């Protein structure tokens, strides 16, 4: 059977650092997978390798049966993989609405022609309406409609996190990659976020997330991959991971 995402023997070196070494893993359609590991284990690098930001040193990545290694980030994105960044990257001088609409336009490009004459024929109008609708839906999904007109730079950190997620959702991805979505949120906020992610998952979205907040990861992920020093050291259910000796040693620390 084929998996939605298939990572085969992937590796990446930066000079002397083996950031990711020979990792093989997969994500099934409809799964919610966690990726954990110590700082510098290569989690973000792996995300970058999947989303086309970093070229592979070896191995292949396939999505929905198609090899995507070597594609540019926007090609990958248009296949339905959408991501957020570990360091928040919103478009500060654009409104919240406009920020999110970029995700929608990324997936449903409105060309120059459409922008010029879109109002004049049905297809163009439909396209614009569709983009508006997706944008608005994504904003509703994260509950940011009330600040749609605000400049993104004026949002507090927590709302920016949701903004970034909304932007990714506006693409209507098949596969969503979240890099430390809960960083900087307090426990209550993290709990809300966990519920939100779960809801997204419940609606059929495949999700992979990196997170250092174990309550969140253990609470919502169906399966967890563990990286350490660029290698996969474990892959299993939360319960299995929680007790895995190698994981305890490398990541969780003994007293958790």
């Amino acid at each position, binding site marked *: 059977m084929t998996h939605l995402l298939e990572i085969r023997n992937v590796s990446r070196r930066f000079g002397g650092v083996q950031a990711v070494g020979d990792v093989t893993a997969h994500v099934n359609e409809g799964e919610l997978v966690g990726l954990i590991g110590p700082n510098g284990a290569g989690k973000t690098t792996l995300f*970058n390798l999947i989303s086309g*930001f*970093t070229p592979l040193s070896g191995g292949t990545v396939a999505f929905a049966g198609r090899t995507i290694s070597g594609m540019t980030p926007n090609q990958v994105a248009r296949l339905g993989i959408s991501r957020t*960044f570990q360091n928040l*990257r919103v478009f*500060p*001088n654009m409104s919240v609405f406009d920020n999110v609409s970029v995700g929608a336009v990324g997936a449903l490009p409105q060309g120059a022609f459409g922008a010029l004459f879109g109002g004049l024929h049905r297809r163009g109008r439909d396209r614009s309406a569709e983009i508006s609708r997706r944008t608005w839906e994504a904003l509703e999904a994260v509950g940011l409609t009330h600040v749609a007109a605000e*400049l993104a*730079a*004026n949002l507090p950190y927590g709302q920016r996190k949701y903004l970034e997620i909304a932007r990714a959702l506006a693409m209507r991805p098949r596969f969503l990659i979240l890099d430390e979505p809960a960083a900087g949120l307090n426990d209550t906020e993290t709990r809300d976020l966990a519920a939100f992610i779960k809801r997204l998952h419940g609606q059929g979205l495949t999700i992979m997330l990196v997170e250092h907040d174990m309550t969140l990861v253990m609470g919502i992920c169906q399966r967890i991959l563990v990286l350490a020093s660029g290698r996969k050291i474990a892959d299993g259910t939360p319960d299995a991971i929680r007790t895995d000796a190698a994981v305890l040693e490398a990541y969780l620390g003994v007293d958790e």
Partner: protein
Amino acid sequence: MFDPYYLQQLAIGLSLGMTYALMAIGFTLIFGVLNVVNFAHGEIYTLGAFAGLVLISATAPPIVAVILGALAIGALAGFSLERIAFKPFRRFTDEASLKSRAMRESTLLSSLAVSIVVREALEIVFGSQMRSVPFEYLINTPVRVGPVILVTGDFIIFGVAAAMLIGLQYLLTRTRVGLAIRAVSNNPLGAKYVGIDTDRTIITTFVVGSMMGAAAGILMGLYYGAVFPAMGFTPGIKAFVAMVMGGLSSIPGAVICALILGISESMATTFVSSGWSDMVAYGFLILTLIFFPNGLFGARRERV
């Protein structure tokens, strides 16, 4: 069998390149600390030349005094320029402004506006014609080196540029001040958190860079024997191009690219024609950028 003609052309190209390099050094230093193109650097260069000229015609001092005078004016001009055209834009600390293109290009344009005012003022005060430098001050006595003829100024410029380059490299990589300059250039907010007086660092850089610009101006005045308000324009563009081609942050890179520009111009004149020489220089630039999108010695873009 080598033809001394080509050697001569190469030497001329190198000498031309050195004149660009002389200006590019200060330009790159200033760009480095603010990451904004200082359009007024050409006017600093011109002011340096005029300062020297005024001194010469007023008191006919020894040449060292002329250079010192130019340096003083350069320092003063750099200081005022920073205060007038750049500092006011640092009053905005909110994120939207810091990351806004509009703010960035405004800073660039404010230096442009200042440069317009300075140039027009110079034209009103001194007229826009070329002014001659008394012959005893000129540094263009021919010198024959083997089959090649150069002038004394070529060696002086080489010496000065080399001294500036080595001095700055030392400053930037080996001293605390240099480290502070690089820190401010990289992350001004971060610099505040580690206790760097960003304002003073920027001013210092401006003063040093402008002194170098003014020194370049007076040297060029003595080298070509003519001083006029628009003299900074062409070398300014060439210095800008050299800086970007070299990779922005690398002063040696800017110098090397200035030499490449000079040589490509003289080679273009040799093999094509003088009218097209800039075409070749710009062609080189584009080619370089196609293969090295961050300049020859530029840092790669940061990871995402």
